[in-house]
């Protein structure tokens, strides 16, 4: 690879590359590595949320209990549906809006700003607004659709509802990144395609999509990671209910730790969730990030 053929000798390469990456790694490491190690330690104990004396070692019993608990597997399944639903939805709407706003038309800058509103709006208030819009009795949604749906109170609907609300809150992130990706595609490529007589669709397939590739793979990865541990919207909207219908793994973790005070048990769920994300990430990076990584 040409990448190895840099203008610097090898030891210098190492030094420069390390000097560039270490500051970021240190900040992240300092804030996150210590908590992760603590959590792994706690997951092997019966620690309560707050302990005045050292907790006693419990081996892998927390893990064994969760892995044999059907609630855990159900929750994992719900988490996966939520994660992939949100990722696919956010990406699709993000791509659509990015393509639209990358076209040349008057007032584009203003619309590019406005499309970010869902993302920029404070989450606490946005979720409460949704909650009210979706209210069975007084909600504008049921009123406009003439429907009588318990969007957040019916266990058959709730998971779809929280997925849609999360997509709505998150898609502008995809819009911004994809828009930037589109802007970085050299215009010459389109001009060349034009000269070759390529149709709009052909241009999209042969110029736009390959041009987005470097941001695509990363964007999807990050959407998955952020959604997998995202608790705020579900917690505010349904609290994991009704009847556990939206009880994703982060909700279990939160309840175990802060409502039931079982920090050891909560840590085990957290580490299991981390393990699943790690597997997803490794598989994904093998497939999509390899040539660039």
């Amino acid at each position: 690879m040409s990448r190895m053929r840099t203008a610097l000798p090898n030891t210098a390469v190492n030094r420069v590359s390390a000097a560039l990456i270490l500051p970021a790694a240190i900040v992240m490491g300092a804030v996150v590595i210590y908590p992760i190690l603590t959590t792994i330690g706690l997951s092997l104990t019966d620690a309560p949320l707050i302990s005045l004396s050292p907790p006693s070692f419990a081996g892998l019993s927390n893990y064994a209990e969760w892995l044999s608990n059907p609630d855990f597997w159900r929750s994992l399944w719900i988490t996966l549906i939520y994660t992939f639903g949100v990722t696919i939805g956010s990406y699709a709407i993000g791509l659509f809006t990015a393509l639209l706003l990358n076209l040349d038309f008057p007032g584009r800058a203003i619309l590019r700003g406005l499309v970010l509103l869902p993302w920029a709006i404070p989450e606490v208030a946005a979720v409460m607004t949704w909650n009210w819009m979706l209210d069975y009795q007084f909600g504008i949604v049921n009123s406009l659709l003439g429907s009588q749906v318990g969007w957040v109170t019916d266990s058959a609907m709730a998971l779809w509802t929280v997925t849609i609300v999360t997509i709505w809150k998150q898609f502008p992130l995809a819009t911004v990144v994809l828009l930037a990706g589109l802007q970085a595609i050299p215009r010459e490529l389109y001009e060349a395609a034009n000269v070759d007589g390529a149709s709009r669709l052909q241009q999209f397939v042969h110029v736009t999509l390959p041009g987005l590739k470097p941001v695509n793979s990363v964007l999807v990865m990050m959407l998955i990671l952020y959604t997998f541990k995202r608790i705020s919207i579900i917690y505010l909207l349904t609290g994991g209910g009704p009847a556990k219908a939206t009880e994703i793994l982060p909700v279990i973790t939160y309840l175990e730790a802060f409502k039931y005070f079982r920090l050891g048990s909560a840590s085990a769920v957290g580490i299991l969730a981390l393990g699943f994300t790690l597997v997803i990430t490794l598989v994904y990076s093998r497939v999509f990030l390899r040539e660039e990584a």
Partner: protein
Amino acid sequence: MKRMMMATLLIALVMAPIGVASGANKQIQFPSWMWGEAGTGDWFKDGVALYESQNPGVKVVPALVPAGQYEEKLLIDMAGGGAPDLAPVFTNMMPKLMRMGLLEPLDDYLAKADWKSNLLPVQKVAQYNGKTYGVVLTASPNGLIYNKKLLDKAGVAVPTTPEEMLVAARKVKQATGAFGYGFATRTADVLEAYIPLMQWAIGFGGDFSKDGVPTANNPKTIEGLEFLKRFFDEGLTPKGLDGPMLRKMFVEEKIAMLIDGPWAITYVKEAAPDLYEYVGFAAPPTPTHAAITGGAFYTIPVRAKHKQEAFALLSVYNQPEWQSRWLEDLLQIPGQNAEISPKLAKEHPWIEGMVDVAAKYPAGFGYSAPGFEEYAGEVQRMVVDGIASVWGGRTTVEAAMNDVQQKMVKWAATLKR
């Protein structure tokens, strides 16, 4: 050059000690969700001013924590080595905190307090293994709160039995279009959704457990919940709302009756002064009239730095004049039995009724199922998960409660007790 400026700015930002600095020798950390509330906040602040004037060199540091985050914040403070000196806690937190050994036993301090014997009966929630871990701050009963105007329009009297209440609710709906009775059916907030269930289960002589044995499908429990469901099925209650929204509707005269604490009336007084004189308080019209009692306790964390001072501060609030001021300003019951002056009784006629209910029918302390005090959160969630399917129209009360019972029995067997 720009980069240098940027870096300097950054360092300045990160390092800037933006926070409260004070020269006082001792700082009493006193977080609360009440500092920002009209009425309650002033009451506490005035007490702090008095305390500080009597104790030069000691400074009380009030920290407002929004109510919704208070529990989580206090737990993290305690777990992370930042325990405050004086911490009010919600009733439902007491059993857990005591059993985990996080609170300072207050018996030695209380021994010298002349007001000790005057504390409300709910004080027993703060006792565990023969020791006292908290001092009741306020405790008020949930009673029937009604809008007399709407009841009059419907031509009904204040109900005293479940049947009367159902009839009243129907007539209110017919005559005025308002909802007869509002209760929380939004299950996202588990405690909010649990309180009406408890109200009706205990109101019919049942509960979700007895002496640590689950009784979720006890016939009386089911009967109570089925009665409650009739309001839901007949469209006499707005669906999917929580407490704050129901109180807002009550203030707007769109609900005629709530079963709620006196804070709902305080809110009416503030938000709709014209309505205030038409609002009454009566015993819950269930067969047992059981009135779920909610409130808060003062506690001193075991890792607090200034325990003596914290207790001295809470003693200020327990002086008779402060206790009557709580009752008179806030129209809620303080931590001690306070005398109702004739003037107060005349101006706010409903108060005598409330005090009477508080004395006769107190129930449901700590919002916990009997025998599962320490695990109240888990029981609440199991019950609410069950009822959520009922409110969602997916199952019957009986089937749901049989299911809850099964889960509770299985779960109770795993507890290390």
